[in-house]
């Protein structure tokens, strides 16, 4: 993790030790994410914690405050076959260098610094 990050820099409040040390800065790579509508709105980039402030989850708080993104379009599109995601759309995004992400399985979790910057870079990807 880069040490230049300061408290209050992130889009949402983060717990201690978050982002994790393994998190790295993106280098203008392309990623994919599921959103409810196109063009996406701000709440398409809210973390689970922001969407469900009092909910108890089965994972750690850092992950709950991250967003899931995919490097592979196929992996992202696969989720459209699941009940919770079948009506969503895929957007392609290029991560701004202000964010940090870490990998867990095939999913990357991004902790971002500014939604407006992120949202100007979206492209719709048609369902495969």
């Amino acid at each position, binding site marked *: 993790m880069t040490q230049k990050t300061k408290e209050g820099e992130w889009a949402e409040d983060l717990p201690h030790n978050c982002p994790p040390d393994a998190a790295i800065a993106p280098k203008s790579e392309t990623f994919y994410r599921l959103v409810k509508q196109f063009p996406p709105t701000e709440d398409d980039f809210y973390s689970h914690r922001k969407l469900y402030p009092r909910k108890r989850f*089965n994972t750690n708080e850092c992950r709950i405050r991250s967003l899931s993104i995919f490097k592979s379009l196929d992996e992202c599109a696969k989720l459209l076959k*699941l009940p919770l995601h079948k009506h969503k759309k895929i957007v392609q995004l290029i991560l701004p260098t202000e964010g940090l992400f870490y990998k867990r399985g095939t999913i990357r979790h991004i902790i971002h610094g500014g939604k407006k910057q992120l949202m100007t870079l979206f492209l719709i990807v048609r369902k495969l």
Partner: protein
Amino acid sequence: MPQLLVASDQFNTQYLCLLVECSEPNDKFLCVPVTPIRLKDFFSALVELREIYENPESDELFYADVVGEITDIQLIPIARESLSDKWMPEPDFYFKKENRHEGIIESRTVYQLSKEQIQDLLDLLKYKPLLEILSKQPGIDVKIA
């Protein structure tokens, strides 16, 4: 957020549970009992997810309302005819389990409630005020659940 989980009951029957609704505070899972062979086939991408729910091995389907962390789950039986298509996965979802971080999690024990048990619980709730009155009468020993 895990989309799929494997749970097992007190008889070591395994259930594949699929997240179908997410809200605060609860999540709903659609659960189907699966034999170890079928589960292995699913994890090996040999059988698709929809097939498991469309043609369950034991013709049983359940849903589970989970509040908070996934620990103990109660399974409520549902009739296949009443199952909405919005809870069903789309065709051609195959999954290959490569490591334990792949999105499948394993829950602890699940408990099944039969239709009869559910009816008993409803009956008990219906008569609870009467039982409370009776329990206050001298000489009558009533235990309220």
